[in-house]
């Protein structure tokens, strides 16, 4: 009994330390957002009264609102397109299963091993070469940010795994009721798979909202910049105003953190779906 208690105290101690280490940067970020830059450099760890000033300065010094809109547009569009494309494919691979399709599936999975750093130069050249004839999907456009990232083998895999558990009799019933194959997909499969879509949506949205390297490469004009680019620029300025920068980071992190807390269960389900 005694050793059990000692063990439990050990558990609490270690977990508490881990919790403090995990949370401290967040607390520091939030507290700093309410303080003046000078106070932040002096190591002030108490909330101050400068949040409003910091927000005003932030809005004054950078194009925060347009960047938020750019990021929102890109992330929402990416999420919608990703879910449609990947779920159609995952469904197709599982429901219309054949040897040939399994081979194609395995080939597509290989793309998960390809590092983005290896793709960015040829992709940049690809979009550069079509910039002249199709300015709407060329360099420095939203389409160029979205297109290469919209289809991921991971998401196809994820939908296929979830489809494995799907009761196929329901689909047959739909067919007998006279639904077309696409009708079966949209009217029966999609509504039943709501939680899978939710998990896929949150994963895709978060990775798109946070994406940095490709937007950095392909977006050039300041009015097109996304939130990560804006924060990166703020962070590399020579005379940083810490209070203002932390305010920007708080604002950028808040939407994602909120979505995460609302949909925590789905997020974890999504992670687990990748290993089943």
């Amino acid at each position, binding site marked *: 009994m005694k050793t059990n208690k000692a063990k439990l105290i050990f558990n609490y101690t270690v977990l508490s330390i881990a919790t403090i280490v995990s949370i401290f940067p967040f607390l520091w970020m939030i507290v700093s957002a309410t303080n003046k830059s000078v106070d932040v450099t002096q190591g002030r760890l108490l909330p101050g009264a400068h949040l409003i000033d910091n927000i005003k300065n932030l809005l004054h010094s950078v194009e925060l609102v347009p960047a938020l809109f750019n990021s929102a547009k890109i992330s929402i569009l990416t999420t919608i397109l990703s879910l449609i494309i990947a779920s159609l*494919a995952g469904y197709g691979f599982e429901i219309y299963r054949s040897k040939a399709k399994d081979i194609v599936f395995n080939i*597509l999975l290989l*793309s998960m*091993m390809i590092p983005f750093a*290896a793709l960015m130069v040829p992709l940049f050249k690809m979009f550069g070469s079509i910039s002249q004839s199709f300015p709407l999907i060329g360099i420095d456009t939203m389409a160029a940010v979205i297109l290469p990232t919209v*289809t991921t083998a991971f998401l196809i895999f994820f939908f296929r795994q979830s489809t494995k558990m799907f009761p196929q009799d329901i689909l047959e019933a739909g067919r007998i009721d006279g639904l077309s194959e696409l009708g079966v997909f949209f009217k029966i499969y999609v509504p039943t798979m709501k939680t899978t879509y939710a998990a896929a949506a949150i994963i895709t949205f978060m990775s798109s909202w946070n994406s940095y390297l490709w937007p950095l490469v392909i977006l050039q004009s300041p009015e097109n910049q996304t939130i990560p680019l804006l924060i990166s620029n703020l962070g590399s300025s020579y005379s940083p105003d810490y209070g203002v920068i932390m305010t920007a980071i708080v604002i*950028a992190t808040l939407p994602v953190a909120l979505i995460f807390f609302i949909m925590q269960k789905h997020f974890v389900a999504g992670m687990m779906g990748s290993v089943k």
Partner: protein
Amino acid sequence: MATPEKAIHGIARVPKKNIVNHKLKSTLIGWSFIAVAAISICLFYFYPMLKALILSFQSGTGMNLEFVGFDNYMRLFKDPTFLTTVKNTVIYLIVQVPVMILLALFLSVLLNNKTLKYKAFFRTAIFLPCVTSLVAYSVIFKYLFSQDGIINQMLMKLSIIAQPIEWLTDPFWAKITIIIAITWRWIGYNMIFYLSALQNIDESIYEAARIDGASPVQQFFKITIPNLKPIILFTSITSTIGTLQLFDEVMNITQGGPGNATMTISQYIYNLSFKYTPDFGYAATVSYVIVILIVLFSILQFKVAGDKQ
């Protein structure tokens, strides 16, 4: 989206030859569900990889490229910056991935204790860093670890150190800072995987071991680790692929400095293509090194993990 409809429509007009026709129809419908995804992955992954391969045999500035055979590959071995970035990336990999996996395993075992209270709180708190964007947390860490930053201030107040540590400007400590940052960001993520796998281990195995007199440490190495082998393999491969591509953190915490002491291969590719005078050919050559490293390390981990899968 229009593809499946079109396929169905087109098939309907083919003269009816019953079974053969029906089979063809369902095959075509199946493929049309997959078409957009397959084409898009070919277009944005496989085709660029092929392009990169061709590029890696070319050299020149900007868009004026000519074939130079294996010159780029020869240049790799004589390029000190490249060799430094490979060394840095491998150091991150062999230090950070095992440390993170062991810590995550350790935390998940502590969390899996039946009598523990506030489990959900601990779990959420430790997972929280995964919500931040890589850029956002990198900027935060850059300021936390700056010369006069809060970390140094606290360490000095607690008299752990007498002089501020040069977290960002010393070649050794800058690497440590990067490793601390990545570990902070990803530990909770990995922990969640282990936690769910732990919950699937039958409690009676532990009970039997306890009756046989196995210590907690023995239980950890003889029961927990072997049972979690597949999930450890999975997380170590994803972490390896992630670390080999490391970019956002280094770019935003140290910008590769001091000198090139923290620069990664990905960042070097970026610099070669978009920062220095663009040399797309050589950048593509360097990028193939990452591909090769990913394949090598993945095979190695499968080998180490042994047998199945």
